[in-house]
């Protein structure tokens, strides 16, 4: 099946290729094949597929990746607006849980 895509040209993902050590961790953790590998460095192949989950940033030992990660969830954003906080989902009831 073709990958589903969402809005284009909105994603905040950045990769500093100068810092990349070629460990491929970003490729391993990305659920949407956003990264690829060329000449011992990772590069962003498919930015519009990124869902800003933040796994790559968290697992890049060189700190070469930055992304404003968070829940891509309308209800979460509404919660955030109502509470004046960051978007946060609490659809599974208890206060400190999510989704």
């Amino acid at each position: 099946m073709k990958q589903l895509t969402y809005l284009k040209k909105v994603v905040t993902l950045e990769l500093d290729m100068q810092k990349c050590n070629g460990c491929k961790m970003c490729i391993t953790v990305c659920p949407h094949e956003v990264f690829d590998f060329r000449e011992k460095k990772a590069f962003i192949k498919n930015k519009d597929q990124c869902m800003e989950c933040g796994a790559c940033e968290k697992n890049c030992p060189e700190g070469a990746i930055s992304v404003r990660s968070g829940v891509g969830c309308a209800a979460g954003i509404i919660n955030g607006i109502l509470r004046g906080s960051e978007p946060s989902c609490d659809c599974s009831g208890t206060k400190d849980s999510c989704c």
Partner: protein
Amino acid sequence: MKPGFINGTITTPNGDVPRVSTKWSRQDVWSTIKVRWAFGRNNYQVRPGLYATGSPDSTSKVYVTSNFKLSFDHLRRALDGLNAWILVLDTKGVNVWCAAGKGTFGTRELVYRIRAHKLDKIIDHQAVIVPQLGATGVSAHEVKTQTGFKVVYGPVRAADIKSFAESGYKATPEMRMVKFPLWDRLKLIPVELTYGKYYLLLIPAVFFILAGLNPHGYSIDAAWSNGGRAVINLMAAYVAGCVLTPALLPWIPFKRFSLKGLTVGWLIAVLFLFLNLLGSSVFEKISWFLIMGAVSTFLAMNFTGSSTFTSLSGVRKEMKLSLPLQIAAAATGFIGWIITRFI
């Protein structure tokens, strides 16, 4: 009380570890169905800690999961026939991916559990297998620095664990991809249906009561006929937004979920127009298009939270335009509908 899935104990240098069955009992199947319908979903937990399947020893692999019982059940079922350890993190009963997004399935909790259960005494290979979607909360290199344990990212889906193990504990690109096929979307629909909670009764009730208003006062007959119709229209819009749109997601045009929902909501409204369910006056018909469109588009937009490919930046952009329009349409439609009671 000892949970039904525990069927023995394994003795380790750090004491006894409960051994769990890799089969689902009838009770497990029934609870899964219930939790998919949101019954008891907020308290569907197993106790965090270390468990075993088969007869693991110091060379066996350690699979990490959350303490949402559905996640735990899928993992133990996938480990059928393997000798393995299961390390359950305390995620307050939330699944791996969502808990990782929140950070409860994260570096800190994993480091804590590795130490608390003295994994270095139980196994001699110093590695844990973390589901790939846990990577949003777990930093592999930090776990390594803090504990000496290597984090190996396993497949997205527990069902792929066998082939992952057979291919030398390497997840193939296929196993690393998150897709969102029809069946996965359908499994989410029951929970989506419960989204409205008590509003599902309250809002139709308000419409039903107001439907009795007329220029001469109040008429119970009008409440029955107009109100009954109103309830059907509202429910249809609800279903359009949280059943039809998710199910048909890839086949509905537009990228924005709100536009997808609007499309389906209005298609239903057009159908109802021909079925004479939208009332007799043009004014009421327009009101219903506004209300049904607003309900469907709002609910469809909420499905971004359940989908597996929407980014925060994207949803923000979409909502900036849609949310004010949805509120305006619902309000205008509602006022318009009340006015039609008097003309």
